[in-house]
């Protein structure tokens, strides 16, 4: 395939389509709108459905309905819209409906700075909806990776029957790069899970398979299943039992934590001799990488750690790193969010410093490089 110049947002639409998404429901919001626009154009070309809903709550509802009816689904939004989606993201987690939600982050809270980049929704991506629940969050740093992670998000949503958040930022969403996209035959696609028993054999929609994920039938296949956001047992019907409640919440977490090693994707560069490292994700990691390269040229033994999977968090990897090195610098476009996770995982085994920015502008490599130097002198002085 020949190289094409495209935006991160467009790449998401292309990736989702190739992964089998055939239904999109959304509501326009900067800086995510191009994803909806892309889907509006592409979906009917493959017989799929695009619908613009009255708000983001309805956008979540419509895609969850379509997912239950058997389609692979996508929705996309930003800040205020993602806040509205939270109610039904929780519903998707509780009822185990596959869905991918793209969040192209902008400055918040509230209407914030609509066109300016930010990474202020990291913890919302993890804990935005109420109650204990599990979720997968992935974050790309390039246009090509936006495509790849769109595919991976759809696959994870289907495989784990969970909401997956593709956490973009304005930097990558609006970044234009020349990319070569793979053909459908080159990518692996996880199909919709199917029941392994008939009704007569005692099929129960929420009975977990070996990987703890239930094989829930699509609507219209004759299984007469019941889906509810109330805590339910394996039959799918509400249960008031403490045991069922405990087991259902536990399984929801464990179906993902069990596969964490496989889901967690962390890129490490220059770590062999590194005494320090910069941790970053999404658009910020582009600048962080440049800063590391530049510091390396000056002989600074600094490495680069990029979180491709943000949640489940790379606890083990960070903990192992923290044993080997003296300091981690977390660069993020917010007041300090993922730094808390890094600190928790590092367990005091090395210094953890924050390089935060929340003024509408993206990092300059020099800013991060200066922060690296500062961290080193602080740690050396300690």
């Amino acid at each position, binding site marked *: 395939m020949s190289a094409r110049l495209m935006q991160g947002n467009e790449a998401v639409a292309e990736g989702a389509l190739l992964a089998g998404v*055939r*239904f999109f*429901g959304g509501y326009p919001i900067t800086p995510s709108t191009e994803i909806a626009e892309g889907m509006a*154009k592409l*979906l*009917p*070309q*493959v*017989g*799929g*459905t695009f*619908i613009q*809903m*009255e*708000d983001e*709550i*309805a*956008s*979540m*509802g*419509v*895609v*969850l*309905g*379509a*997912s*239950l*009816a*058997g*389609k692979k*689904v996508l929705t996309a939004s930003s800040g205020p819209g993602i806040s509205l989606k939270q*109610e*039904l993201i929780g*519903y998707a987690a509780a009822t185990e409906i596959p869905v991918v939600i793209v969040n192209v982050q902008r400055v918040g809270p509230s209407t914030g700075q609509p066109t300016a980049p930010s990474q202020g929704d990291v913890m919302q991506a993890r804990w935005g909806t109420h109650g204990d629940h599990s979720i997968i969050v992935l974050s790309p740093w390039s246009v090509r990776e936006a495509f790849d992670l769109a595919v991976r998000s759809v696959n994870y949503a289907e495989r784990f029957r969970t909401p997956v958040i593709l956490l973009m930022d304005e930097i990558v969403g609006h970044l234009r790069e020349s990319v070569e996209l793979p053909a459908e035959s080159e990518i692996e696609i996880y199909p919709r899970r199917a029941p392994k028993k008939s009704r007569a054999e005692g099929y129960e929609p929420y009975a977990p398979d070996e990987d703890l994920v239930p094989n829930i*039938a699509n*609507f*219209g*296949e*004759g*299984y*007469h*299943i*019941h*889906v*509810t*956001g*109330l805590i339910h047992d394996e039959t799918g*019907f*509400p249960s008031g039992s403490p045991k069922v409640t405990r087991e259902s919440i536990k399984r929801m977490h464990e179906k993902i934590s069990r596969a964490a090693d496989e889901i967690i994707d962390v890129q490490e560069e220059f770590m062999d001799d590194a005494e320090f490292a910069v941790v970053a994700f999404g658009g910020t990691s582009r600048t962080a990488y440049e800063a590391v390269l530049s510091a390396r040229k000056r002989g600074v033994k600094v490495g680069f750690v990029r979180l491709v999977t943000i949640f489940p968090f790379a606890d083990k990897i960070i903990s192992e790193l923290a044993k080997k090195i003296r300091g981690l610098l977390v660069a993020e476009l917010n007041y300090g969010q993922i730094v808390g996770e890094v600190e928790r995982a590092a367990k005091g085994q090395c210094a953890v410093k924050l390089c935060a920015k929340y003024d509408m502008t993206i990092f300059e490599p020099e800013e991060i490089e200066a922060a690296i130097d500062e961290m080193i002198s602080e740690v050396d002085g300690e």
Partner: protein
Amino acid sequence: MTERSYEKFFRQNRLPHLWCPGCGNGIVMKAIVQAVEKKLGWTQDNTIIVSGIGCSSRASGYMDFDTLHTAHGRAIPFATGIKLANPKLNVIVITGDGDCTAIGGNHFIHGCRRNVDLTVILFNNNIYGMTGGQASPMTPLGKKATTAPYGSIDRPFDACKLAEAAGATYVARSTAFHVQHLTKMIEDGLDNRGFSFIEALVQCPTAYGRRNKIGEPAKMMAWMRDNAIMKSAWDKLTDDKKTGDKFPIGLFYRAETETYDEAYHHVIELAGGAK
């Protein structure tokens, strides 16, 4: 006895239902399955029941189809997704007055506007039943609710007028007293291609009747009998006669308009995606 054929549409192991003694919800739920039974080609395998949250929305759990108990107010978006994802499915929405016209009000009017092929049945008990009797947008003026202890001053919606103005292509009302009429109104709603809306008045003796001293379930139903006037008779009444508690029931509006699902099929053709 001869086994009632509609009983097969209920999940027998889930009955008796959780509704209070004399609650009208059970009557409407039966009317729905009896209407479905009359529809040629509608089976338990290709008919989907979608509900929101509330006493009324618990109906989905008792009905032996693929059923979806969604979140408060959100049934119509979910139902829209199901219908558009698989237009071969028949989709029925069960909702309450609060569910449909308060928290779900925006989804409701937009559902009507799009004319997706859904049938929405609103169980109107004039109150928030599930949460214990707070005022809803359909609580009549002056009636008491836990959040309107001195009587409601909020002007109520006429959900049928709202549905018609918003673009629904079938609009009707009936009551839990008028069971056969109600069943017919639902059946015609199922027949309509497009967004059909049926308001079914139901008695809630627990959260509404008792507080408003309307009393026993049977008395609340007698009130329906005495005050509901068939549309044809209602239209002949002069305005000074349309007073007190009197209200019209019957078919209010019906139109033939392209449904959203049909219109979207043209989009697919234009885009070259038709098989």
